[in-house]
């Protein structure tokens, strides 16, 4: 499963699962991530799972690359171990005040607004990873005809709650942040809740996500 382990600097291990992006490989990354997390290995102070890599950071005062590499190489992952995945529904309003880049997408994809939104809302997404900014989920996979590149010039400020598309992925801006994804709507849900220290992320790697289209009225109600 891990194709290669190398060092990334002097305080991290880079576990490479190959170059492909698919759920199968990503599930293996997440299983290794969960296994290592549960073991509480001395000196490991951070883990970053992504599509096909797992980066393991450690405290160089306590341990080193050689020691952690040996531990990881000898870790046993039960093949039967199931991903702890949940199905999460995210309400999204696509009012024109929220769907900032829908016209751009219409042109790039040669589809009309309703065609784009129909595909989007019918899809069940898979969460590959979270990060970049706190709690932002990277969701896949959109079919070929829905894949567009990032904006040529990223926005300086993407509003909080924005739903963005790029290539085969969708994401949710958990904070106002700079960003270059094509924005099609906005969710009133708090996807990252800073007051819940144990589980601040509504969506975690391995979870499934369905988007539900809502009206502006419902958006305002949910927003409280």
């Amino acid at each position, binding site marked *: 499963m891990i194709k290669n382990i190398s060092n990334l600097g*002097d305080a991290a291990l880079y576990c490479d699962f190959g170059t492909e992006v698919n759920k199968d490989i990503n599930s293996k990354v997440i299983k290794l991530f969960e296994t290592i997390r549960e073991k509480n290995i001395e000196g490991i102070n951070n883990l970053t799972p992504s599509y*096909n890599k797992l980066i393991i950071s450690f405290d160089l005062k306590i341990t080193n690359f050689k020691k952690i590499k040996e531990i990881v190489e000898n870790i046993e992952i039960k093949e039967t171990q199931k991903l702890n995945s949940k199905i999460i529904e995210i309400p999204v309003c696509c009012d024109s005040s929220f769907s900032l880049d829908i016209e751009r997408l219409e042109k790039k994809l040669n589809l009309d607004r309703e065609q784009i939104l129909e595909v989007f809302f019918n899809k069940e997404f898979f969460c590959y990873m979270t990060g970049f900014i706190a709690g932002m989920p990277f969701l896949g996979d959109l079919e070929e005809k829905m894949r567009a590149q990032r904006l040529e010039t990223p926005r300086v400020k993407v509003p909080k709650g924005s739903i963005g598309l790029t290539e085969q992925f969708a994401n949710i801006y958990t904070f106002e942040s700079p960003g270059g994804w094509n924005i099609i709507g906005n969710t009133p849900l708090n996807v990252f809740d800073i007051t819940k220290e144990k589980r601040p992320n509504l969506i975690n790697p391995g979870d499934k996500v369905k988007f539900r289209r809502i009206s502006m009225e419902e958006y305002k109600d949910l927003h409280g």
Partner: protein
Amino acid sequence: MDNNYFEIKRAGINTTFQDKGRNNLYHIGIPFSGAMDNRNFLLANKLVGNKLESPVIEFAYQGPLLKFNGDKITITVTGDVIFKLNKKNNEIEGRCYETYQLENGDEINILSTNKSVYGYLAISGEIDLKFQWGSCSINTKANIGSNDGKKLTNGQKINIHKINLNQKNKKINYLNSKIENIRVIKATNFDYFSEEGKKIFFEKEFIVSKLSDRMGMRLEGPKIENIVNTNIKSEGLLKGVIQVPADGNPIIMLSDHGTIGGYPKIGVVASVDYDRLVQISPGSKIKFKEIDLSDAETLFKLYEMETQNLISQIL
């Protein structure tokens, strides 16, 4: 008097509370944060008799002007910093790595860091702060940490709820060494760059851009040519990782970095040089020197021993 506080008469440019930062949150998108220059952070706490990893005030370039209200309190400033104390209307030139006693109405005015970026003000006692994931460190990007995750502003109060009294004055002789040569370990996408690009990376000088902050340090200079792909599938980042986007200008990830990124990684700054890297100010030169893993590990051990040595000299 039990109501001890500092009034912020001028907050400074980027003044935050910082401690050791927070661990094990990369997977949800939260970086370590914490004091940028770890050695100066530890020395500041040791000088005022605090636990080594207590919260301190970190400032960049221009620091705060604070007025003390209360009985008596011990403070110190670490880094390479120009500051003044106003004690009973007598102005005193401050010296770093020495402790000072402030009394009711006294002020400390941190004018600027000297050819460096970060400095630390430690207060003997406990600052009244909110902790998130075990750390008070302010991450202004995600609004995480004390002070609602925002930098300090004019007019605010910093409440001190426990003062360590009977502190004797302490000092240590220490000079921050400034470096231009930053040691770097080649990273996973090193071969994405042309032979010429690799040569430029390790041989030419770069200039630190003004667009540098706690998240990252941007560099300007000769362009590093990518011959494979200017994007990679997004994956984890670490502090010290050097990414090269399509424009060919390297960006070094610093303590508040985004946790995932999609630009090729050309190198990673060796841990031994991180404290000194963050102190290189915009407009200054920087040069990268290649180092292998085992040398980086040994040098870090020596640096760590030196830090512990300095700490133990403060009695």
